[in-house]
């Protein structure tokens, strides 16, 4: 058996989509920080790799209609450097990914492509109600982030489709992200939590990572907080302990964690409640500081 692999290098998005349509088994490679691990561990042997590194359309971001259209291959380093003001939750999450080397290569398109429940970009995307833009030679469609994840490492992406961008609403209030790991960096989350407050519409968004088969929202917690937060008197001391506690419990209740090597289900629930309480306090402090 001779082992060989085609390396397809499109120079434009149109060419990339054509190649993907013609080679639905070709594995897209962006930063390669997940793909190369799988190849090195011989977990898969695709017949072809589709290199997205030379597709200019995927490597830029721009503001458009109150949202940021963030190209699939914009690396985390640039998200941290350039989008901290408009997408603070995603930038905070990006800062916790891997190491500087990983953040220089990897981006949100690959995180979504892998669709791991532990992907750190997912909670802020859920909390802000982002859309995923996907394209094929058949056309372009947007998938609400809540419908993108179908199961562990499974997504709504069809075989001929690529993620082209995420459309993330510009922050309309404080955002937070918090993650617990088995060490302080270079670590897959034991659990993580993203929070986005919209002080204009008076809504609360949540995203739970690494505590279920897919990244989750805590809808009951969102509704509860939107209703009871004292939006009219945003001072640090107006967020009561009871509100924070109830919010934390509702977030924990929304999780569907399992026991694994990184942590037990019970710990994950417990920690999520703490992270949710804390991030709500931090965010509320920011509201009052504005």
């Amino acid at each position, binding site marked *: *058996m*001779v*082992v060989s692999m085609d390396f397809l290098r499109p120079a434009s998005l149109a060419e990339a989509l054509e190649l993907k349509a013609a080679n639905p088994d070709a594995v897209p490679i962006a930063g390669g920080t997940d793909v190369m*691990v799988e190849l090195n561990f*011989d977990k898969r042997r695709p017949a072809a790799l589709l290199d997205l590194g030379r597709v200019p359309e995927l490597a830029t971001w721009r503001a458009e209609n109150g949202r940021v259209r963030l190209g699939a291959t914009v690396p985390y380093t640039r998200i941290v450097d350039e989008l901290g003001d408009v997408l603070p939750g995603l930038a905070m999450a990006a800062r916790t990914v891997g*190491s500087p080397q990983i953040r220089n290569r990897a981006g949100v398109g690959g995180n979504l492509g892998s669709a791991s429940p532990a992907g750190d970009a997912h909670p802020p995307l859920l909390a802000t109600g982002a859309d995923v833009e996907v394209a094929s030679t058949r056309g372009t469609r947007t998938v609400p982030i809540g419908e993108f994840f179908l199961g562990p490492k499974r997504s709504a992406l069809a075989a001929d489709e690529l993620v082209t961008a995420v459309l993330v609403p510009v922050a309309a209030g404080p955002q937070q992200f918090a993650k*617990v790991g*088995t*060490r*302080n*960096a*270079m*670590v*897959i989350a*034991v659990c993580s939590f993203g929070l986005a407050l919209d002080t204009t519409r008076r809504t609360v968004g949540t995203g739970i990572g690494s505590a279920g088969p897919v990244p989750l929202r805590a809808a009951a917690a969102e509704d509860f907080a939107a209703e009871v937060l004292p939006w009219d008197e945003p001072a640090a001391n107006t967020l009561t302990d009871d509100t924070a506690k109830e919010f934390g419990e509702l977030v924990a209740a929304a999780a569907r964690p399992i026991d694994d*090597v990184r*942590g*037990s289900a019970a*710990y994950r629930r*417990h*920690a999520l409640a*703490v*992270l949710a309480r804390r991030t709500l306090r931090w965010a509320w402090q920011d509201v009052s500081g504005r």
Partner: protein
Amino acid sequence: MTGLVGRGVARVDGRAKVTGAARYAADHEIPGMLHGHLVLSTVARGEITELDTSAALALPGVVAVLTHRDLPPLRVPSFPYLKGFVPMQDTRVHHSGQPVAHVVAETPEQAREAANLVRVRYRAERPTAHLAHALDEAFLPPLFRDEPNEFVRGDAGAALEAAAVRVEQDYSSPMMHHNPIEPHSSTAVWDGNSLTLYESAQGIVFTRRVVSIAFDLPEANIRIISPYLGGGFGAKGPTWSHTLLNAAVAREVGRPVRVTLTRAQMYTMNGHRAEYRRNLRLGATREGRLTAIVDTSTAQLTRTDHGVYNTSESTLRLYDCPNVHVRQLGVRLDLPSSSYMRSPETTAHFGLETALDELAHELGVDPVELRIRNHASADPHSGEPYSSKHLLDCYRIAARAFGWARRDPRPGSMRDGNVRVGWGMATETHTFSAIQSNVELTVDVDGRATLRAATQEIGTGTYTVITQVAADELGMPLEHVTTLLGDTAYPDAALSAASATVASVIGPVSQAAQDARKAVIALAVADPRSPLHGVPAEDVVAERGYLFARGDRGRRDSYRGALARHGRPVIVTGSRLNSSGHSYGAVFVEVRFDPRLATLRVSRVVTAYDPGRVLNHRTAHGQVIGGVTWGIGFALMEHTMVDPHTARVVNPNLSTYLVPVSADTPSVESFFVDRPDKGSTALGARGFGETPGTGVPAAIGNAIFHATGRRLRDVPFTRDKLL
């Protein structure tokens, strides 16, 4: 003497390393070389019943697939070959991940792919993988390297009975792996009956001995080359079976062959820190004077060897306790051989330093004060006085720098908002060895010096410190001295393990450099063409490559001038055996614990040491940073998980075998007493590398107790144990 010794000069090999010029074991290009890949057993105990290599052989590029059916008999070497058998000599399987076939191909990728295609069937037997499943089989192993596993001083049983205060507890730690960043690599090049090995070896002279026994070849026919190592931590100290098998295979196929282990293979091919349990019973007076220590440990052994590598040295020798009974038991399991892993004495020392903290708490005595009260001013086991020991200074220096006096001893008493703060400390100590070492120093006709020794650079700064000492004694600038290591063509010298390198090698280096200086001065003063002609040799000083008459600096010659006139190099040798001993220190640790998330951070580490004379403050501090980082890993993360049913390692990679990253490691302060040990022939320096870190796991556990009131005795202290 130009004041170079002690200075924190930068690594002389730093540039080569950061530019990629340094050649590591797998970097040497050998014409005609083939690549090997090992096939490892997938069962832990049993017999090979079928071995089908046809699919592998059919793959393009594959030259041979060798198994026990093809290899010539190899003799089982003695120490430092640690396994009780050589694999691929018969059908028996002793552990999961044991070599059963060796594939040789034109490229590494072809060899690896073919290795996947070798079909092996086994008659598997049920393995035992954990101490807990065979504790009733614990036994006192026979002598290992001439050392017993039982030590008795006084009558510990009776003293314990009579003690006013007693602490009895169990302490334990899991299997751990060295994980140097450079994987093991061996390249065998045969020329008739002579063998050259490009090797990742911490002890090239030892490797030569092992290979000589296995192949029944004279040592003179074997050359081992290992100029740089990407870390070893003990994993490359012993010689492991891949080296022997690869050399045998290279001989069979008649071409040079290289084998490089994969990261996963490094979890079964090259030793590990044994799973370990320990029962400790301390007896003491109400004032905290130790009267008895009964120390019974149980370590994992195999069915084919019985080396206990994590000895209770500190129980025996650290504190002044008249009655001690140490027993180092073992249990035979179906796992690969364990071995020495960085600071092996840490394994036992963790329990002792934790138990002392428990005793201090029970008595209401400050933990530092308790250690001072039990300080040994002569070796408690042999009764011999120390040639020098400044441990009490270490406690004082580190405690003051840390601010220990401000510690409120009540557990849970120190807080920072929601965060609980804990302060803990421990004594640090490790044995160092001394190994007969020889060097050769050449002052060439250009007036520059080259030093050769068959020791090696494990990454700690050996090239640098040797160069410093030689340049200092010669009176030359650092750049005029080149040190060549890692080749058995040079004079035999120490292995880079057991904290032995500096202690063993520096004596001969300084002796050779002195002799070379004297020889060149003698040439100059005897030479009518030299400005120094006729000056008494003892009145000539050497500085920066020049030779001056003392008191009349106008009369000046140089190494370059003297050697040019001489017309041929001056060659001298140095040879010395130092004595072994212990280095001491103290470590103080602050932890910050978030009780809601059970997250723990080591936020501050302050240390002080007595390693005798410090030869290079920068490399010594580097050892402290490394040791403390290892201690943090030992305490909080490192854990090789073994499946109890299959006896297989389930986390053989660096994404699931966690070690600390920068974000887990605070900056580490280190202080040195820096007074020469007059008993050391290495310019007063002692072996030091493995001392830092030995106390860190206990200090962290003691700090956790101080922060939370919870006493943890089983590492790693993961979140589930803290919640």
